[in-house]
C-alpha cells in the first residue's frame, strides 16, 4: 500500500489542500474560499479530497498531515496534524520541490504578500507585507467588481491593452481614486486593468523587495499569479523571465505536505478521519484574568470535549480550562 501525505494551507481568503504520494507528486488537490470560517472550510476541503480520491479508486494510507497559513494552529489542532508550520517555510519548501534552482519566490495572496530569497536551496532572506493589504488579491478583486468584470478574466483583458493607464502604486486609496478619475475621463477598460496590474507590481516591489536583490530564477505564485496581466507586469518591471507553475496556488499546501512527510521519521501511519464533516467542532474564546496580560485563549472542542487550547503565556491558562469545560 502506498503512503500518502496531506497538506492544508488555510489562508484568510482561500483554503488549499493537496494529497501527495511518496514521490511528492500531487495526487489530488482542492481550492475553495475560506469565507471567514476556517474549520468549515477545512471540513469541506477534506470531503472534496476524499471524493476525488474515490473517483480515482484510491484508498489512501495517511502517513502525515500538515497545516500552514494564518489558521494553521486552529486547524492543525482540529485535524490532528503532525506538523504545523508558518507559510513562509512551507512556500519555500513547496517551490523548491518543483524548482530546485529557484533564487526568488514572489508570492501574492489574498491578504498578504511575501518575497523569499534563496541561495543554493536555502532561504536566506524574506519579507512579508505588514500593515497594509495594498497590492494583494483583495485589492484586485474589489477593483474588478468596480469595473464590472470577472476576476478570472482580468489577466486576459489586461494583455490586450496597448497603452496601460498610469495608476498610483503607493496606496490603494490613491490607486482607487486614480482609477476612478481615469475611467471618467475616458480611458479604455483594458488600459485601466493593465494599469492596475502594473500598480500592484510596483507596490509589491516598493514594499517588499527593498534592499533585496532579485535574481534568476524567479518563480511567481499565490492566487494572483493566475493573473497573466500581473505576470507580464512583473516581467516588464524586472526584465526577467517569470516562472509560474500550473499549481502555483498550491505551493504552500504542497510544501507543508512535504514537511509532514519529513516530520514523520518513524514512518507510522496516522489515524486520520476523512469523515471529519460529521464531527462537531466548537471554539470558545476566553480572556484569562490571571494577570494584567489578559491573554486571549481559544479552547477547541471536539464533540464537546476540550482537545486543545491556543494562546496564553503561562500555566495559569490551564487552570481556566476547568472553568471553561462546563460551558
Amino acid at each position: 500500500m502506498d503512503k500518502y501525505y496531506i497538506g492544508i494551507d488555510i489562508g484568510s481568503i482561500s483554503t488549499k489542500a493537496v494529497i501527495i504520494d511518496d514521490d511528492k507528486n500531487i495526487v489530488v488537490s482542492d481550492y475553495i474560499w475560506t469565507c471567514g470560517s476556517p474549520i468549515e472550510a477545512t471540513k469541506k476541503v477534506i470531503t472534496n479530497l476524499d471524493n476525488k480520491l474515490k473517483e480515482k479508486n484510491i484508498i489512501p494510507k495517511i502517513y502525515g498531515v500538515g497545516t500552514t497559513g494564518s489558521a494553521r494552529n486552529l486547524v492543525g489542532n482540529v485535524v490532528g496534524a503532525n506538523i504545523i508550520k508558518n507559510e513562509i517555510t512551507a512556500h519555500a519548501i513547496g517551490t523548491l520541490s518543483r524548482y530546485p534552482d529557484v533564487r526568488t519566490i514572489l508570492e501574492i495572496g489574498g491578504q498578504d504578500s511575501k518575497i523569499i530569497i534563496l541561495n543554493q536551496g536555502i532561504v536566506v532572506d524574506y519579507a512579508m507585507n505588514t500593515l497594509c493589504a495594498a497590492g494583494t488579491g483583495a485589492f484586485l478583486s474589489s477593483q474588478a467588481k468596480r469595473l464590472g468584470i470577472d476576476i478570472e478574466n482580468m489577466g486576459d483583458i489586461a494583455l490586450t491593452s496597448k497603452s496601460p493607464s498610469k495608476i498610483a502604486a503607493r496606496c490603494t486609496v490613491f490607486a482607487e481614486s486614480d482609477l476612478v478619475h481615469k475611467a471618467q475621463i475616458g480611458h479604455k477598460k483594458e488600459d485601466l486593468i493593465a494599469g492596475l496590474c502594473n500598480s500592484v507590481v510596483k507596490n509589491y516591489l516598493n514594499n517588499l523587495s527593498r534592499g533585496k536583490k532579485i535574481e534568476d530564477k524567479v518563480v511567481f505564485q499565490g492566487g494572483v499569479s493566475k493573473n497573466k496581466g500581473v505576470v507580464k507586469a512583473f516581467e516588464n518591471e524586472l526584465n526577467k523571465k517569470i516562472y509560474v507553475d500550473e499549481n502555483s496556488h498550491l505551493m504552500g499546501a504542497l510544501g507543508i505536505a512535504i514537511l509532514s512527510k519529513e516530520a514523520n521519521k518513524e514512518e507510522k501511519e496516522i489515524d486520520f478521519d476523512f469523515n471529519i464533516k460529521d464531527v462537531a467542532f466548537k471554539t470558545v474564546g476566553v480572556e484569562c484574568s490571571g494577570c494584567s496580560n489578559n491573554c486571549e485563549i481559544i479552547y477547541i472542542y471536539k464533540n464537546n470535549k476540550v482537545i486543545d487550547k491556543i494562546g496564553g503565556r503561562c500555566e495559569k491558562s490551564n487552570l481556566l480550562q476547568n472553568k471553561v469545560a462546563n460551558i
Partner: protein
Amino acid sequence: MSSKKYVISFPHIGNYYVPVYNLLSKLIDKDTTKILVPDKMSKNTIDIGSKFSPEYICVPFKYNMGNFIESLNKGANVLIQAGGGCRYGYYAEIQEQILRDMGYDFKYITLLDPEGVNIKKVYGRFKKINEKLKFKDFALHFIFAIKAINILDKFETYIRENIVFEKNKGELEKIHKNFLEELKYINSYKELYEFKNKYFNLAKNAVKNDKSDVIKIGIVGELYTSMEPFSSMFLEKELSQMGCFVKRYTTVTYLLFEKGRAQKGHLKNAKDYVCHSLGADGLESVSHTLELVNNGYDGIIHIKPFGCTPEINAMPILQKISREKNIPIIYFTFDSQTSEAGIKTRLEAFLDMMVMRKEKIKKNRREVYG
C-alpha cells in the same frame, strides 16, 4: 487616595522599577511622601496611553503616558521622566503639557538635561519635595543606585543568555522573580554584594554545564523596545522558548555609562559603513551588528518603534551588511498593536531559515572533510 502630601510615580521600563524604587525610598521624606510603582504593563496601559498621545509619536511615548495616567488616577502627584538623544528628549515637556491640559495637577521631575545627567540640577529638583535632603546623601544614594542597576543588568544578562540551558524549565524565572523582590529593599553595599553572590550562585546551579549547539541570535535596535518586553511582545522570551541563545547589548548601564565612551570605538568598528553618528542608537545598531557577525551569530533581529528615525537611518546600512556578510537580519517595527500572530509567523520562519542554513553548512563541511 493617600494621606501623604506627595505620591511619587514614574514610567515603567523593564524591571528597572526595582532599583528606582530602592533609590526613591532613600531620597524621600517618608513622613510626607509615598512611592507608587505604576501598574504592571497591560493592554489598558497602551490603550489609555494611545488615546491621549499624538497618533504619530513613537510608541514608548504612549506607554509612558499610559503609566502616568494610571498612576495619576491612583493618586500620584509627582512624576519622574528621564530623557534621551532622540524624540525621547522632548517627551517630558509634551507629556507634562498634555497631562496638565487633561486637568491633572502634579509636580514634574526630569532626570536628564540636554547635556546629560547633571546631578546638581537633579538634586535641586528632588530638594523641592524633600527639603531635608542633603547633597552628600543624595549623591551617595545615587551612586548606590547605579551599582544596583549595574548588578540588575548583569544578572538579567546572565538569565537571558542562559535560560535556554536551564536544567528545569521555569527555575531561572523563579529565581529572577525573587531577585527582584529582594533587590527593592537592599540598603548597604555589604548587603548588595552578598545578595549578588547569592543569586548568581543560585542561577549558576540552575544551568546545565553542557552548552551545546544552539541557534545564536543578537538583538539590536532602539532602547525602549529592547528593554521593555511588553512593548516587543515578549520577543526575547519567545526566542528562548524556541530554543535560541539571545544576546542584547542595550541596558541602562550601557546607555548611561558605557555608551559615551564607546562612541569612538563604534565609529572605528563600523568605519566601512558609517562615518558619523546616526542619532540615538543608530550607530550602535550598526557597530553591534558587525560585532555579532564577527562573533559567529546565526542571525540578528533589529527592533524599533514605528517612526524611529535613528533606527530607520541604520536600516539600509544593516541591509547592506546583511548582503555583504551573508547574515540574516529581520526587522520588526512595534506600535500600539497587540496582535502577536504576525510576529510569531515571522520569527518562526526566521528560525527555520537559520536551522536550514546551519544544517547545510554542516553538510557541506562533511562533504569537504569526508
